[in-house]
């Protein structure tokens, strides 16, 4: 089956079975590295992207269910040369060890800041409660989100 999806502002035609989890389309058809396979069960958040403005576990949404909702991935936020304030804040705070969960952390923080531009630490921790990190970078991640929230323009 062919589907049109909008990812990071561009339309793409992809051919895959309707039940294909969006994650594999993003990674393998579009060559994006941001969303990661972590569990395939919607438990860890490593695969998160914004779909229609909502934080979505791309391992658990089928291609046929994406519809016209615009998809934003980590790559859609910023680049190596021009990182998004959240990405820059993660670098400034050195808020990662292995970095495998960072995609989900940054995407979850993005959707948090979109609805609450000045979250408290408790709100940040709450928004990230279902995003798993195993290296123990949690406190730096909270600091990075706080730092990004203090940026004047986002």
């Amino acid at each position, binding site marked *: 089956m062919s589907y049109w999806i909008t990812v990071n502002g561009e339309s793409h035609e992809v051919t*895959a*079975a309707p*039940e*294909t*989890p969006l994650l*594999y389309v993003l*990674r*393998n058809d579009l*060559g*994006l*590295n*941001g969303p*990661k*396979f*972590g*569990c*395939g*069960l919607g*438990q*860890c958040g*490593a695969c998160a992207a914004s779909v229609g403005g909502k934080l979505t576990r791309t391992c658990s949404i089928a291609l046929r269910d994406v519809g016209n909702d615009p998809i934003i991935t*980590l*790559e859609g*936020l*910023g*680049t*190596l040369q021009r*990182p998004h304030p959240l*990405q820059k804040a*993660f*670098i400034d705070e*050195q808020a*990662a*060890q*292995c*970095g*495998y*969960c*960072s*995609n989900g952390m*940054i995407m979850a923080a993005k959707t948090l800041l979109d609805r609450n531009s000045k979250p408290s630490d*408790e709100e*940040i*921790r*709450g928004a*990230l*409660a*279902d*995003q*798993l*990190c*195993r*290296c*123990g*970078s*949690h*406190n*730096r*991640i*909270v600091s990075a989100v706080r730092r990004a929230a203090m940026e004047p323009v986002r």
Partner: protein
Amino acid sequence: MSALRPSRRQLTRSLGVVLATFALPSLSAFGQAPGNVPFSLRNNRKLEGWIRLEADETVTVFTGKAELGQGILTALAQIAAEELDVGFDKIRMVSADTSRGPDEQYTFGSQSVEQGGGAVRAAGAEVRGRLLAAAARRFGVPTEQLQVRNGTIVAADGRRASFWELANEGAGLLKGDIALATAPKKPGDYAIVGKSVHRIDLPGKLTGAPSYVQDIRLPGMVFARVVRPPRYGAKLVAFDEAAVRARPGVVAVVSDGNFLAVAAGREEQAIAARDALAASARWSDDAVELPDMASLRPELKKLRAETIVVGTAGQSEPAPGEARRLSAEYSRAYLSHAAIGPSCAVAWLKDGHMTVWSHTQGAFPLRGDLAKVLSLQTGEVDVVHMSGAGCYGHNGADDVALDAVLVARAVPGVPVKLQWMRDDEFAWAPFGPAMAMKVEAALGSDGRIVDWSYDVWSNSHAMRPGQAGGVNLLAAWDLKTPFVKSPAPHIPQPFGDGDRNAVPSYELPRKEIRYHLLLDTPVRNGSFRTLGSHGNIFAIESFMDELAQAAGSDSLAFRLAHLRDPRAKAVLQAAADRAGWTPGKEGDGQRGRGLAFCRYKSIGMYAAVAVDVDVDRKTGVIKVPRVVIAADLGLVVNPDGAKNQLEGGIVQAVSLALKEQVAFDRRQITSRDWSGYSVLTFPEVPSIDIVLMQRSDPSLGAGEGSLPPTSAALANAFAHATGRRLRELPMTPERVKASLS
């Protein structure tokens, strides 16, 4: 600057501590090397194998160490930039790669800065020394009159030559054996080492640049998945190959003995085919009888064991008679690495040569074992390190590499990416072994320990690939013509494996420490961060508090009274001061504070940790609002990087102590996803306050040492808060409620 010819003694001192080698057979050849050569240099003496000056005026530094998320490439780049006197931005790091890098065996044991850093330091000093000598010849002046500024050598009269010019001129100038003729810089002269430098790999990882083995895409690459048995010991009886082959996209179904895998053109097709293959597979009823996880302590003691005395003192004197004797037993559960991304590898058999991209900790040892399984020469296999998800020890990285290789062998010329599914990772990656500990001690009338007896029961924590007498790769044991596991080695003290940190750092006039290395292995084990240190320090430091209480002494004072090493005392005092330790202060039934100390591996970093707890007596949930650590790492290469490592160890230790245990019934592992194996989440993570001691002594690795004392201090804090002691990890709400009822 000036070039120096150091005395042998100076050289030994400046190169830092040279650690004894592990008693792994493959490492025994190092035993012949002179004692002042960094471990990593001994089998890799060629200068061009470490550092090359490139035509584009950059410097390539090769390391056999792997970036595991610990920031080692950044720290090594700092060391190289420092010794060479070139800009940090000129350094290009090449991580472990059997086709072109030095063989430094494994990246483990918090040794990369100590050993790998020692080698890069020596190589950097050598390059700089040779370039200085070349410049001195060119300018006709002694080296003492030359200065090095950012990759350029300047003479007193203003003449100058860049490193790259000089290297181009003298072919062979930077080739040949490292002579160790140039002394590295003195720590007091460091400009880059000791500074908090941002990790060189993070910007890419945080913006979606291809960074991980999972991100490798090769032309024509296919995706593969494995189907593992339902439990240890089950044999493959039948499966429906034709039906799976007929599924969309499937290019190969690979079976060999009990090994079963499938490859397809698209990843979701491979996953669906794996499900179909698993559903069609019939397995024998064979099983390995697993221990009763509800009573691990007696269960472990029932297994066959080889007893090794690993520490002894004062045994010629009789045990003091009138002393007051106490004893207690402790345990910890089997632990999962639980990395966020399941293990993954890419393998490609091309023109008879097998190349594997892997997040292994030991590219060279893995290469050897892969070659054995494939019946290839070592030179016909290459392993290239690529980052994976977090690595806390011997996880599934090596196993999945063999899985990928077995599939790649079946589809010559086609690159194969194989990632484990979440249940593969939780059920089949090696676990950190469960441990049982028993301590008995006697207190003299002056309140000092006069006798100490310690027993620890544990499987080997050292079952990595690359050891003699077998092949330690999961699929190798499942092949039609199977390979045997290597016999469990015992790593001698002071490192130890299950007995790591079993010998206390305290002054004990009479002691005996016995390691009961378990020979039956019902559950698959491997190396998990700190090996046995986590369990041993939990037992020793819990018992130190029990003894202090019996002696009517304060926990801090009791420890200080039994320590002689000033660096040990200093971290304890610093942690207590920062935490606001109040001697004699009672817990209130809910809140409490605990203290613990550990000198990691007995010769590594020093750490003292104070943990605050808040116990919900109704739900049995222990909250940890705050952790304070004082750490002495010797000379710190990258302070922020070191802090990041200490923090990670602390969070992991709180998680281990409160939550983590591999679950199983008597036949199979039952914790197979995140609902069955929970780790600490954001709302549960404590605030962390770090005191880094300022020292210029040789660097001591920071990767592990914060973990053991944190779990122990947490147990002590619970006992302080409630007056009840939990001697089994994890301290689950059920155990908390049972102890308070």
